[in-house]
């Protein structure tokens, strides 16, 4: 990974209004959603008090919010990742990176780390909302940390897909469309199978929710980590190979 490229990408992300506007809009929507679920939970509290092993605030407030974060990431990661390579190509700055000596892998990894960094900030800020409830109630911290890890891996996988799409497309908008389509396919891949009651097929394994849900329930399993790592590795290798091919084919 080239640190200079990662730092520069990070700086450029925050030098543009798009990232700030997106961060503000997403956090505002999530905050509104959080307050609604919290209000719902407070309304249910008298009924929950009488139930044995009733779901707590982590189940009824934090979990829906974290699922909403995952849904939002499906859409905003392609929007922020679309310019990673396609934007460099359009503005004529790609030769600067290609002649920097960083190599294709260094360029791609630098971009990936910066993009992931942005989404880690977003996820941390979103998670701070349910975490703030710790002042007045008991939270399942183990589950929240597992969710944090799951969402970071999820965002990293989506970032890698967005960068790969950006490497393969001349125009940033098309890259965003391609990444969004890939995200939605991976998200909905096993919807039909689940509807038919199939839950342990290959198609279930290939779908994103199959591997995100366990984290949200506090289960950190190596199979899920490997799944996200595979997506990240395949997407980044494809992106680096595309940059190499650009040298060969022009």
């Amino acid at each position: 990974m080239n640190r200079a490229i990662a730092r520069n990408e990070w700086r450029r992300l925050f030098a543009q209004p798009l990232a700030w506007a997106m961060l503000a809009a997403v956090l505002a929507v999530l905050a509104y959603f959080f307050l609604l679920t919290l209000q719902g939970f407070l309304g249910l509290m008298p009924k929950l008090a009488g139930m044995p092993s009733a779901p707590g605030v982590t189940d009824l407030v934090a979990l829906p919010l974290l699922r909403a974060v995952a849904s939002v990431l499906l859409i905003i990661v392609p929007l922020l990742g679309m310019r990673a390579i396609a934007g460099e190509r359009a503005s004529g700055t790609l030769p600067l990176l290609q002649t920097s000596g960083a190599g294709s892998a260094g360029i791609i990894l630098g971009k990936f780390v910066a993009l992931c960094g942005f989404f880690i900030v977003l996820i941390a800020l979103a998670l701070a909302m349910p975490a703030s409830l710790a002042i007045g109630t008991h939270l399942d911290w183990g589950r929240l940390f597992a969710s944090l890890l799951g969402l970071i891996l999820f965002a990293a996988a989506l970032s890698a897909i967005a960068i790969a799409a950006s490497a393969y497309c001349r125009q940033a908008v098309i890259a965003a469309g391609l990444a969004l389509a890939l995200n939605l396919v991976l998200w909905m891949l096993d919807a039909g199978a689940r509807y038919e009651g199939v839950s342990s097929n290959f198609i279930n394994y290939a779908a994103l929710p199959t591997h995100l849900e366990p984290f949200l329930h506090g289960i950190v399993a190596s199979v899920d980590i490997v799944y996200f790592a595979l997506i990240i590795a395949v997407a980044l290798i494809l992106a680096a190979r595309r940059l190499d091919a650009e040298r060969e084919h022009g």
Partner: protein
Amino acid sequence: MAGGALLQLQNVSRRLGGRVIVQDMTLALDRGCVLGLLGVNGAGKTTTLRMIAGVLAPNTGKVLFDGRELHEEPALSRRLGYLPETPPLYAELRVDEYLAFCARVRGLRGKAALTAVDGVVERCGLAEVRRRLCGNLSKGFAQRTGIAQAIIHDPDLIVLDEPASGLDPVQAVSIRKLVKELGSEHAVILSTHQLNDVTACCARVAIVHGGRLRYDGKLADLTGAQGGDLESVFLRIASADDAQAAA
């Protein structure tokens, strides 16, 4: 061909979109020399420079930098500075931020990077715009910033693709002066179709036409042997090739 030349192109050819753009080009260059790569639009200058810079790989032949193949070792690119036709600027960064990035990405760290930024800001006359956004620079300052990024890491070879194109006469003169200065310490390749650029900066000239190298030698030899100024000699070479191609 000089065996130990800093840069060597050995029978380099390149096709793009099914068309031969550069054909069987052989060229060598050493430090302390400014080579003017002269040719009309579409002659193959930019493609040649992109191969020299390592942005494009040749289909056949070799581009050797210090005896090593540039395409096999991308890290060698750090020893050259490249200004493409359009200066590769990040519009949303300030000039000093941008140059600091260019220094760091080429391996300079901490104080060395900041010193390098100060050095090129002074050398390229960027002091008054160093805190301005690259996107707000005039054409002349953008071009100078592009040259600054190409020399910030003190490379052995500097490759400049039409650095004075689109500039007013005063700006063009200052760019030529800068290129001439650079030529005393580095190897410089200056691609242009402006004959003034070549006569003002270059001791050596390579004329490219139709993707082929038509002449490579000292500027004085070219004008002396062919009896005339560079303009008439260049036009003679280009039109002779065109006539040959038509025949």
